[in-house]
């Protein structure tokens, strides 16, 4: 089985936000929820870079550790998913997450959070593959169709890579060697306790 990861090559990302839009459209993500976002660092200064960030599907995921109802699980592809039937919307996973991935719809009074929503690596949830319940809660299940996440597939500069960790690391490594520079695999050290050695 593959170990699925995301890698954003910040030297290629042009902050077009197509990944964000593709994600929102593919999964019909409600208003105010952003499973993926693009953060621009050193904006307007020399060395400015943009990084597309979503759930990194961490190894030993902090969200799963702090969850008071244990609603998270890791799939055979090492994708971190959760059950919205068990989630209570306490918000702890957001405090633990290094990447700000968990999102909460605002429901009810007093800023009360609804069930958490986050990137599913385009692989749905605990419900049966391609079921209506799965689509309504988690969006489409491209992985079950044999496809990779749409954000990476849509990426016009192929900055955002998705797939088996070793394969995308190898692609990135080749790029860095060829062009002679690279700002690194953003978030890998935090998410996977390892980075791409070049």
């Amino acid at each position, binding site marked *: 089985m593959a170990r699925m990861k995301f890698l954003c090559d910040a030297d290629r990302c042009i902050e077009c936000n197509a990944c964000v839009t593709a994600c929102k459209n593919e999964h019909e993500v409600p208003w105010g929820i952003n499973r993926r976002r693009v953060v621009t660092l050193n904006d307007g200064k020399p060395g400015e870079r943009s990084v597309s960030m979503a759930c990194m599907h961490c190894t030993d995921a902090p969200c799963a550790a702090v969850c008071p*109802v*244990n609603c998270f699980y890791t799939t055979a592809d090492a994708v971190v998913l959760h059950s919205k039937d068990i989630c209570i919307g306490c*918000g702890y996973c957001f405090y633990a997450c290094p990447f700000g991935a968990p999102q909460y719809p605002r429901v009810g009074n007093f800023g009360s959070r609804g069930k958490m929503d986050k990137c599913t690596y385009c692989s749905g949830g605990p419900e049966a593959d391609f079921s209506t319940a799965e689509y309504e809660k988690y969006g489409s299940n491209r992985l079950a169709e044999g496809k990779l996440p749409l954000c990476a597939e849509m990426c016009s500069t192929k900055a955002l890579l998705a797939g088996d960790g070793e394969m995308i690391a190898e692609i990135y490594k080749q790029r860095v060697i060829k062009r002679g520079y690279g700002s690194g695999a953003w978030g890998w050290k935090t998410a996977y306790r390892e980075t791409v050695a070049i």
Partner: protein
Amino acid sequence: MRRAVTFLKTFLLAAMLVAGPTALAPALAQNPIQADGVNPMGARPTADSVNEEFLFKQSDKIQGRISIPDQKAANLIQPQGREYRNFRESWLPWIGGLVILGMIAALGAFFLFRGRIMMEHSQESGKKILRFNAFERFTHWMTATCFIILSLSGLNYIFGKRLLMPLIGPDAFGALAQWAKYSHIYLAWPFMLGVAFMFVLWIKDNIPNKIDIAWLKAGGGLIGKGHPHAARFNAGQKGVFWMVAGFGAAMSVTGLMMIFPFALTDINGMQLMQVVHSVIGIVFIAGILAHIYIGSLGMEGAYDAMGSGKVDLAWARAHHDLWVEQEQARTASGPQLKGHPAPAE
């Protein structure tokens, strides 16, 4: 004619080729990037980009600019989540377990050692004196009911998945935890109101004074023998009052911050709020366990104060002699005895 034009073109091209390097030099200087990516200043603007290591040296988290309204999304990486996780998963269950079970064990040991503190009978036994009026009792029980539910639903955030979930299964536990969360958020409001009411109702009788020092020196009514002087509230009860006021305020502030997440603070503030809320909550629960013990099982006659509101006059005289005198002086209709008995000393 055509040959002339061709000749002229060739001549011009040759002239340009000869003059080229000098004539085009200013134009080249305007394009700062050379073929190897180095500009005239020696920097490589494409390659010299920001990187994670450099940004983490500047700040403890990586922040940038985003084009969506959710400003907390501008945090690209915040590794502090790891410390929060370490506290919540490695420390908190131990702190909670040790403090609460430790208090229960201490109370159990105290009960075995000291037993129930029984009422001492005197000629005043059987007569009743009003200790807490209906509004005071209502406020107390409203706050107490909320506190018990808040405690259980709060402890569920720490121990539910460890103790309850294996017993009842994830689906039932998910549903229960959802209701626990709702009750925690909604009952926080009557609880805060109750703490505020109690503070206003009882603060005038809870200002620490010299009598409290003497009471504490004598070991109070719990450890020591005899009954040191006490007004409406003894030093122990004043301690409970100030604990409820102080912890109640701390729980309210940190709780409100969590009910309105990110309204006043950032992610690190939210993490801190939860650490403070959980630790104080645990100590608060342990403190209230002691309060419940002494107000019910631990002392005969004490429960009536919050039950019917009227306590036995002999009990009141023994435990709150100065208050009884004050009450009797204040109201002629109160339960009086002919020939004022000397305080028990």
